[in-house]
């Protein structure tokens, strides 16, 4: 048996839920990437009458404007993953660098940045996002901007505490005693050791970002209504819930499944990437 197969088997035995989550995430990513090819219709294209129940021609029915729900759910995967991935990568990267540098520098830079983070985190996340959207106006890119602003301070705070621990460790002290420059200490010793935390932050925050995007669109202040956002589709469905329950069912299941799978995968990655948490009792 090849080494790769053996390793896969061990992973499956140790992290069965994580592997299941990864499989669903793979399907989700494939759907998102291939939406233009796979989806039978365009996301904004009115194809048939309104409120056609699920059937052979439209497996998930059509919505209040006669658009194919299946196509919109597929394009919705694309939108959700795009928003989630971009905002988390940008937010967590900026936040991590911010946390590492201010944590390492210490002093006034560190204290003042901690107080700024306090101020941002004093605002409940959805409320901050809501007021940001009120200020910048509705669009997909503005949702990404709002999410980035939401995620940066949390990431900065988490990574800072990790960086502080590393900066106080004997090998950094040794490096400093050997005359290594500050820049080199940060780049060679602290940055690489924060990588595990960075990966965990990215994977665990993607599902959160997706939920916040959907919540904003659900409240009618996220992506514009014609964009195929799962949250926005759910709002439209709520208005016609008695006659067309499929309009709430399919987008709702899509988002729950995506979040569930991403959570499972995130938990597994946390177990693997962060040895301190491995074998925890939770």
């Amino acid at each position, binding site marked *: 048996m090849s080494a790769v197969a053996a390793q896969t088997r061990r992973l499956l035995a140790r992290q069965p839920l994580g592997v299941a989550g990864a499989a669903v995430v793979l399907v989700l990513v494939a759907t998102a990437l291939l939406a233009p090819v796979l989806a039978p219709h365009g996301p904004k294209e009115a194809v048939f009458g309104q409120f056609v129940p699920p059937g052979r021609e439209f497996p998930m029915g059509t919505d209040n404007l006669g658009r194919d729900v299946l196509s919109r759910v597929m394009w919705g995967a694309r939108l959700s993953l795009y928003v989630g991935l971009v905002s988390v990568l940008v937010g967590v990267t900026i936040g991590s660098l911010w946390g590492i540098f201010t944590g390492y520098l210490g002093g006034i830079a560190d204290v003042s940045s901690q*107080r700024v983070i306090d101020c941002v985190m004093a605002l409940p*996340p*959805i409320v901050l996002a809501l007021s940001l959207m*009120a*200020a*910048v106006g509705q669009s997909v890119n503005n949702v990404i901007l709002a999410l980035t602003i939401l995620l940066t301070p949390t990431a900065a705070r988490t990574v800072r505490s990790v960086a502080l621990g590393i900066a106080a460790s004997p090998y950094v002290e040794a490096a400093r005693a050997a005359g290594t420059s500050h820049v080199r200490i940060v780049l060679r010793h602290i940055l690489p050791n924060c990588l595990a935390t960075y990966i965990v932050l990215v994977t665990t925050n993607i599902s959160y970002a997706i939920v916040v995007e959907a919540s904003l669109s*659900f409240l009618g*202040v996220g992506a514009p209504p014609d964009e195929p956002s799962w949250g926005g589709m759910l709002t439209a469905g709520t208005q016609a819930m008695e006659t067309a329950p499929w309009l709430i069912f399919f987008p709702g299941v899509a988002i729950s499944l995506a*979040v569930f799978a991403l959570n499972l995968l995130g938990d597994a990655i946390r177990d693997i990437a962060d040895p301190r948490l491995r074998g925890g009792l939770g």
Partner: protein
Amino acid sequence: MQHGPRVQPGAARLQSCAVQVYVVHRLLLFVPTLLGASLLIFVLMRLVPGDIAQILVYQTGSEQSSVQEKQIKQIRTELGLDKPVLVQYVTWLGNAVRLDFGESYSQRRPVRDILLERFPRSMELAVLTMGLAMLWAIPLGVISAVRQNTWLDYGVRVLSISGLSLPIFFTGVLILYLLVRVFRYLPPLEYSALTENPVENLKQMIWPALAQAYYISAPIMRLTRSQMLEVVRQDYVRTAFAKGLSDRAVIYRHALRNSLLPVVTFIGWWGGRLLGGIVIMEIIFAVPGMGTALVQAVSYRDYPTVQAIVFVMALIFLAVNLIVDLLYGWLDPRIRLA
């Protein structure tokens, strides 16, 4: 610590001194953080492309442009938009301290009246949600830990992980759908005050509270379970068992008490998410609280109202965190010196 000598009188004085420093430190941070948060929102609101006066005038849709120009100028002076942002902020803050938050554009009445009317409703929903969540999450967490790795444990864990994966707006819509379609029951959509008609009030409030409590209870369950598992392995619990106490006494009197400490902090951490969730729940179940007012104000670009509501929410969130921190220091003496 348990086997160490009794704490010296000097050390005790040092300890109580540390508590005071800690309390003062926390209190000192409270006001600047609140001010910073409100300044943040204030500046954000002024980053609007175009300005508020223009938006207001063009919404009313009057025809003549010279009249509009005049109106815009007048509104700018009225709102003080012609002054620098910092001056505007100080003016706003000065009024806010006297509980004057200006006039709401969309509702044409003082923002203070809106706050006074809506605040108790949202707080009722928040308290109801937290209460319901803890009501079933803590016992289930204990059962799950005591019966570790049995089908009961797996059941509770699946329940909690699925609770975390269902976005609350979907749970809310599903509950509404089930009530309407399956049980043929429409919860009241007219709000009745808790003091006037408690039954009607609860009939409306219980559903949004349940929907969000399902979500909030998931992490409480997980936390209670993992804490119980950790505490049950401690020496003093083994001692309690060894001296022949009943299972029930050991679990509830010795283990659970110490497991609940982190659950207290949890309320602080999740206070923000709870408030955000309240906004969504109020929209779905037509509860006229602060969240509904906020979303409405956001869509009308009614800035004085948005600003005041966000300010109040930050105040609640910070106050809850402060109380939780102080409470934690009081409940767990080990924290005080840390």
